[in-house]
């Protein structure tokens, strides 16, 4: 069977967001795993309850891990590497989640007059949470 190819359709917004959902989902799993493993490498041994593990995984930030009894928590977590890491996790998490909300809403409303209005609202919510997340991460 010979290889058959066709020119790919021009990238539609739906295609780009569908691809982004997959990439961001995988990226969140990978980044979360890195954060969790690094928490253990840095000496986290206590308070292994679910909320703490979730904080180590998705909020690698001295504000969140200070009660985990990691020795020298501010030296371990409060540096540019973890700040960038957390900004990336926050960006993927907020975008992935709000895009999911957009898809669910548009499943129901289609492209009526509500579509641009709700898309705009979701974009504003996305912008607000992203700016807030970056502010909190850099200020902590």
């Amino acid at each position, binding site marked *: 069977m010979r290889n*058959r190819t*066709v020119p790919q*359709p021009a990238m539609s917004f*739906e295609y780009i967001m*569908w691809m982004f959902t997959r990439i961001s989902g995988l990226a969140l799993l990978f980044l979360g795993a890195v954060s969790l493993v690094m928490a253990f490498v840095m000496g986290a041994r206590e308070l292994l309850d679910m909320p703490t593990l979730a904080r180590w995984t998705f909020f690698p930030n001295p504000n969140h891990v200070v009660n985990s009894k990691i020795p020298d928590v501010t030296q371990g977590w409060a540096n540019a590497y973890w700040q960038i890491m957390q900004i990336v996790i926050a960006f993927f998490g907020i975008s992935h989640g709000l895009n999911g909300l957009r898809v669910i809403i548009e499943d129901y409303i289609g492209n009526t007059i509500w579509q641009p209005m709700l898309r705009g609202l979701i974009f504003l919510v996305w912008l607000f949470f992203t700016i807030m997340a970056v502010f909190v991460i850099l200020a902590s």
Partner: protein
Amino acid sequence: MEIKVKILRFNPETDKRPHYQTFRVEAEPTDRVLDLLEKIKGYQDGSLAFRRSCAHGICGSDAMRINGMNRLACKTLVKDLSKGTITVEPLLGLSLIKDLIVDMDPFFEHYESVMPYLVNDEPPPLKERLQSPEERERFDDTTKCILCAACTTSCPSFWSNGRYVGPAAIVNAHRFIFDSRDRAGAERLRILSDQFGVYRCHTIFNCTLACPREIQITKAIGEIKRAIATGSLD
């Protein structure tokens, strides 16, 4: 044995909303639900409206909800249903015309929108457009579609928004996109990458469960998503 058949009835000339009516029918375990409907229409209530044609699972006319699942009445045996009352309702997601008959026009409009026919402007060869068994095998599964609408009307994405082309249209696009003789694959992929194309499929798998021809519909939709992403039709 006597069976109770509970049917959702609707007469647009007299009813404001659909209501259930229960009939008692003598039936054998090997009878089909279509036989029960024929008995009711023939001997108890001639006003009962439903579609049927070949009665052998090929024409796709008599898809309906039987005990909550989309099935063909002519392929569903009484003995395969749970004992007690058999509930028969029209398909969901399409507007009701009368009793078990729904308006299939939106379904066929979506079907037509994906160009479900061979497109090839190249000069025809002397005999025929040859195809290897492997090339034919590539789209064999999706050739089995009988356009009964059981898949599309079982899809929650279609229920929530009737502008979604639906699984049946995508299956029929797949049948030609992956046909080595066809030349309009790119055009069909462009149509299906639209807002109401394949990306409204959230892999719920209702379509695959509902298909009376056992077509792997969600898999076919996944193959089209991959073709859009890669441009490869292998």
